[in-house]
């Protein structure tokens, strides 16, 4: 048959044409997206992938912003306009229309111009209808590019950057450590918890400090009950004895609560004698004594030490 003789390509011709077509493909891709060559070289390990230093302005200020606001459309899952903004290397590779960052020249960097257009503009980013970046966010991008779009420039070295908000540090929870700290007084705590249900509890899951609230027991809680707390006194940081039947007879036990920070004694029968006994409590910073016979005479010295005093208006 005719096909058998005419359609065969010799091996060299075949390989050369494949190579030429591949090169042509690369060429077309390079034309379409100039950074394509770098992307391929980086992928093949022939060119180092640029990375931002952990303490750099990029890592501290720019990257979190891009992650928060941009990578939904320009990230791993979607690459609108062929642009990815989920790593320093990708940002520098640009989109299929070319580089989006011109180091040192924010005004001609699309990454900046697009986010600074009015939201109604067809080219504005994020596109109209979506929440625009805040002024501070736009400033961060502008400063990063203006300062050379560096991967290493330290975060603190950029002048005029909007103030960075310190993230809240959550204290680490270590149940084993808490258990160790609680061990010496655990038996005493349990005993009080049995005898006075709901009155004593730990300040937090990670702490051996105690909080006491006897106010819900009302008049069923008096000096005898407060005396039961004596073995725990040094560990009590907050205590509420409002509405209970305690009197000045409890003053010495209260004075033994050396770690006490907040104390509520509203509507009790205590007097100036109890307040005077509180003088050695160095950590006390808040005291409530509304509805008592307490006078300003005893409160004044605590107030001088910086303790916030809550007392009846006529006391002042």
């Amino acid at each position, binding site marked *: 048959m005719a096909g058998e003789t005419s359609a065969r390509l010799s091996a060299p011709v075949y390989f050369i044409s494949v190579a030429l077509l591949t090169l042509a493909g690369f060429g077309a891709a390079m034309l379409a997206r100039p950074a394509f060559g770098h992307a391929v070289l980086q992928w093949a390990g022939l060119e180092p992938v640029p990375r931002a230093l952990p303490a750099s302005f990029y890592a501290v200020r720019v990257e979190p912003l891009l992650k928060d606001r941009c990578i939904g459309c320009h990230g791993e899952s979607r690459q609108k306009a062929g642009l990815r903004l989920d790593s320093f290397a990708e940002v520098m590779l640009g989109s299929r229309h070319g580089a989006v960052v011109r180091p040192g020249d924010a005004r001609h960097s699309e990454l900046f111009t697009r986010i600074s257009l009015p939201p109604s503009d067809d080219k504005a980013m994020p596109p109209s209808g979506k929440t625009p970046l805040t002024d501070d966010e736009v400033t961060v991008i502008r400063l990063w590019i203006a300062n050379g779009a560096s991967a290493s420039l330290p975060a603190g070295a950029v002048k005029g950057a909007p103030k960075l908000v310190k993230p809240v540090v*959550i204290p680490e929870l270590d149940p084993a450590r808490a258990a160790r700290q609680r061990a010496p007084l655990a038996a005493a705590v349990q005993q009080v918890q049995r005898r006075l249900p709901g009155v004593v509890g730990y300040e*937090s899951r990670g702490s051996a400090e105690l909080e006491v609230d006897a106010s*819900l027991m009302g008049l069923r809680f008096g000096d005898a009950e407060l005396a039961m707390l004596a073995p725990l006194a040094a560990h009590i940081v907050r205590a509420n004895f409002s509405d209970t039947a305690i009197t000045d007879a409890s003053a010495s036990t209260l004075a033994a609560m050396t770690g006490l920070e907040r104390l509520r004694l509203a509507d009790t029968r205590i007097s100036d004698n109890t307040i005077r006994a509180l003088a050695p409590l160095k950590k006390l910073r808040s005291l409530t004594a509304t509805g008592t016979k307490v006078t300003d005479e005893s409160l004044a010295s605590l107030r001088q030490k910086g303790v916030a005093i809550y007392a009846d208006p006529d006391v002042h």
Partner: protein
Amino acid sequence: MTDHPLLHHMNLQAETRRHFLGWGMGGLGAFYLNSALPALAKAPASENAPLDFRRDPATPLTVLPPQFKARAKRVIYLHMGGSPSQLELFDHKPELTRFDGKDCPDVYLKGKRFAFITGVPKLMGAQFPFHQAGKSGTWISDRLPHLERMVDEICIVKSMRTDQFNHAPAQLLVQTGDPRLGHASLGSWVTYGLGTENQNMPGFIVLISSGGTTANAGKPLWGSGFLPSAYQGVQCSPAGEPVLYLDNPRGVSRQERRAVLDAADEINRQTYRQFGNPETVARIAQYEMAFRMQLEASEAMDIRREPAAVLERYGAQPGKTSYANNCLVARRLAERGVRFIQLYHWGWDSHGTPTDEGLNVGLVNRCRETDQPTAALLADLKASGLLEDTLVVWGGEFGRTPMLENRGGQQMKFVGRDHHPSAFTIWVAGGGLKAGTSHGATDELGYYVAKDPVEVRDLHATMLYLLGFDYRRLNYPYQGLDQKLTGVKPARIVSEILA
């Protein structure tokens, strides 16, 4: 878990073969990890690892300590349903007033969808004069003369934003962290995490008043969603019976009630033995709490016990259903160890359609109803020291547009503004917060947040932080996800407003 043999039995009953197999497989996994990946096995618990919130099912509201030292012990949330206009109360925008009556620039309209605004609406400046108040020099309008005196106690957040522009989903987002039904409300999360101090009262109490319309999203706003139903809000009323159906029917004594409950409990226990549904134990617990509440809740809700001078300061009138009464009750509940006190005052939806939805009538009335009692509540909490560890939140579900509403492209009878999710204002006060400050800012026309945006989930994360929780660790497994109040998106604790 409990000393009671029956409950112990019930707990054992709740352990199914599925649990056993689940643990067994977990154990195999643990063996593998222990041998193959010692480094991983030694790694500290993940920051998302759930904390242990297990309790005796008969006492689901037992107090549990917070994850770390808390700044606030309880919450009073004043939700202004319908959403008050930030531009008439807190967000002072002189530029907007300058452009009053001009067409809204195209910049703000393109690609936007509004609830009612169509075409090109007119910009509209504040309808009431603003001035600076307090030592902090905070800008505030003349509609809030009482709050003005407490302005140095509150922290105003002017850069809130949401992604919901209809009432019900926006209210759900603010109150449950998700615009869809079925999620646990703020109060449920907090009582789940911390329990409540007063075991004779619900831990999460809801008080409702209205200046016209009612709740758009209804009871799911204080529902427990996927959390056990013991953590749902209990709606109470300061007029008549505080808790509906709590009183004994006429002719039934407390002893007889006890006998009825004993019989009902026995039947419930039989049901539990048969089906093993933990919700049955919850039901027994609810009946018992209701029995204890008969005495304590009535006393707590009874504002007739307050001196006349106090009633006058709040503008409260015993026997009525009003926001003023609810504020006074809120203070009494806070004093009595209730964990989460949720107030709703509806009727802030100032579109300008009927009189009562006009900025010039409805908003004025809502301010008159709420300003004095809110300020009185803050003043009382301040005076007694309770504000130190009470978190007070005031706000609606979204903001209102800087444009005059032109429903159907028409000029309307009354002056109003449309729903505006892009920016709104709330204020917070109390435990652990910077008093006398403002946070965030909108652009010159008050349209978009221009500085320090705060998402609803950021507010939630901040509230949980003040209550002693990392929002990532207060979670509950449901439908294959460790559910969180803040949802799946990362939230940010607003450290700028922390004291």
